[in-house]
């Protein structure tokens, strides 16, 4: 598999900017794995976190193209620096009979939360990085995932401690 890159992009918070950013990916055949957007503390600025896959050259090209957009203020490739990544998922999983206890054990081990309960299902809130999400979902899969929604990755740079 090609390497994943997590890119943070600060943009003007005005209509059409997201489509400029995503259009740049689709127009060049670059892939977006996930995308998160919301306002920063400055309401005129939004921050986009994009996870994409591609070799070094493609990533370098993506970043340069992002810089070229007039509404892009700043671009940081977090893959090159120490950072924390989190994603959240809401998952409804089949839970009856013996599996109810087993699922609660998984919830405990992976520090998830049960957000909804029915006689035959649990809905769980899961947060974690990419690796943890995969581990949890792999374990839940065997019980039967009925519904899932994920936020995509958020990422923030670690503060230098020296």
């Amino acid at each position: 598999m090609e390497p994943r890159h997590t890119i943070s992009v600060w943009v003007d918070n005005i209509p059409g900017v997201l489509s400029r950013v995503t259009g740049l990916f689709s127009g060049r055949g670059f892939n977006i794995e996930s995308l998160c957007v919301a306002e920063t503390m400055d309401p005129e600025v939004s921050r986009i976190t994009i996870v994409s896959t591609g070799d070094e050259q493609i990533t370098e090209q993506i970043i340069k193209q992002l810089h070229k957009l007039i509404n892009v203020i700043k671009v940081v490739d977090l893959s090159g620096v120490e950072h924390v990544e989190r994603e959240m998922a809401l998952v409804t999983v089949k839970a009856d009979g013996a599996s109810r206890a087993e699922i609660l054990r998984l919830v405990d081990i992976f520090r998830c939360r049960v957000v909804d309960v029915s006689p035959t299902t649990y809905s769980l809130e899961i947060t974690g990085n990419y690796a943890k999400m995969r581990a949890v979902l792999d374990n839940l899969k065997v019980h039967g995932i009925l519904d899932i929604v994920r936020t995509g990755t958020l990422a923030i740079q670690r503060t230098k401690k020296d």
Partner: protein
Amino acid sequence: MKMTGAQILLKCLEREDVKHIFGYPGGVVLDIYDELTRTPQLKHILVRHEQAAVHAADGYARASRKVGVALVTSGPGATNTVTGIASAYLDSIPIVVITGQVPTALIGNDAFQEVDIVGITRPCTKHNYLVKDINQLATTIHEAFHIARSGRPGPVLIDLPKDVVQASIVPKFPEEIKIKSYNPTYHANPRQVKRALDMIRGAKKPLLYTGGGIILSDAAEELTRFADTLQIPVTSTLMGLGGFPGNNPLWLGMLGMHGTYCANMAVSQADVLIAVGARFDDRVTGKLSEFAPHAKIIHVDIDPSSISKNVKVDVPIVGDCLDTLKQLNDLLHELPAKDWAAARRPWLETVAAWEKEHPLTYTWSDTVIKPQYVVEKLWELTKGDAFITTEVGQNQMWAAQFYRFNKPRRLMTSGGLGVMGYGFPAAMGVQVAQPDAIVIDIAGDGSIQMNIQELITVVENNLPVKVAILNNTFLGMVRQWQQLFYERRYSSTPMGAPDFVKLAEAYGAVGLRATKPEEVEPVIREALNTPKPVIMDFRVEPEECVMPMVPAGKAMHEMLLA
């Protein structure tokens, strides 16, 4: 004092020193057109198709060093501009296209003549705007001009809803435009420049490969000084022609698919390749993995995304071509003089031998006009000093090969997008910018039919543009590929055309025809002596091929020579 949106727009154009607008009216721009009647200092040239307005603005920009301006209505007016915008985008030409839009309240309703032109042109403009608030109008227009002309230039589109144009406010015109997220790098990093110079001075077989960036940044003189001082041979892309004098002994001709044997061999053998304002397009490189296989590569470009996009670069330099070449020349000046001619002799002799081995040439005929001969004669009879536009196809390549451009901004051609139909409206724009110059569109019989309607525009505006049709009765370049790679199955390439002489006359222009080689010169002379638009119909050899040719995807040294 209160002003309407239309008044603010025209005031901003004046403030940007706009003298000419190419355009076509319609419902949502009525107010702007009405205001134009009270703005005699802005000359509006009414085209016959909006695509032509954009190509004309493009030609105008190239010939005048100014930003070209086109004005059209919403819907079909706007969609008709897309080809022109895309062409200007790929060639980095500074133009501003103003489109009318339905009133803001109707946007998104599939209103009459509504299209999302901002959405449509997002991938082919440098930037674009939908102005929804009249308070933003003045700033937006000045931003658009600033973005179009600065950094790597390009087209900017402004979409103006009718109610914004009709509203009125007391406007504030910005004194200065600053965009916090847009700061092109003009000044190249001196350390990188020094590194490049060291590499160049140590080279045995250096080669300058230049492109449109030289023209756009007006760096031709600095380039010539640099090449002359270090005795480095120069080749260029189609877009770069004229950026280095075609009569300089260091000039190798164009490189790439229809480049000279000598230029392509030089690339294949060079040990240091200095790319300045060029972008390693596939029509230039051929098979990428075998492009300049022995060379360390220095790449100067104002657009960082051009660098290392296609080929791995050893010394990247982000900066304006003019600034970088100046720095290089200044550094050179400080160094002790050296006899570079002597040092370079072996390499220049090798290059000269290639040139002698396979010069650019064609087979002469006593009975049939060779298209290359027409271009040669045009060159000779205009003393190489005309403004040449081209259509696309064989005509474009023969113009590039046989009109030896000595000066920058003399060739206007749709290089990146390759738009048939570009040349004639572009010539119109060039003639508006250079009223006293000789402007010639070197055309094909196919391409000229794509924007022939502009004949009436040039007649009406007394623009004495000359069109030289290399009439081979074929979509020649496509036919050439069919001949070479599809066993001469001429599928949909033989093409009928009207009687161009009668057509010219019908429009009120002058039509001339040459069917034999000895008629070529008198026809050109007569055209040049006619102070009116002239169409010259040269009946040329139908199955002539553009040579040399590097077949698509092949390495440069695998070129076909005849």
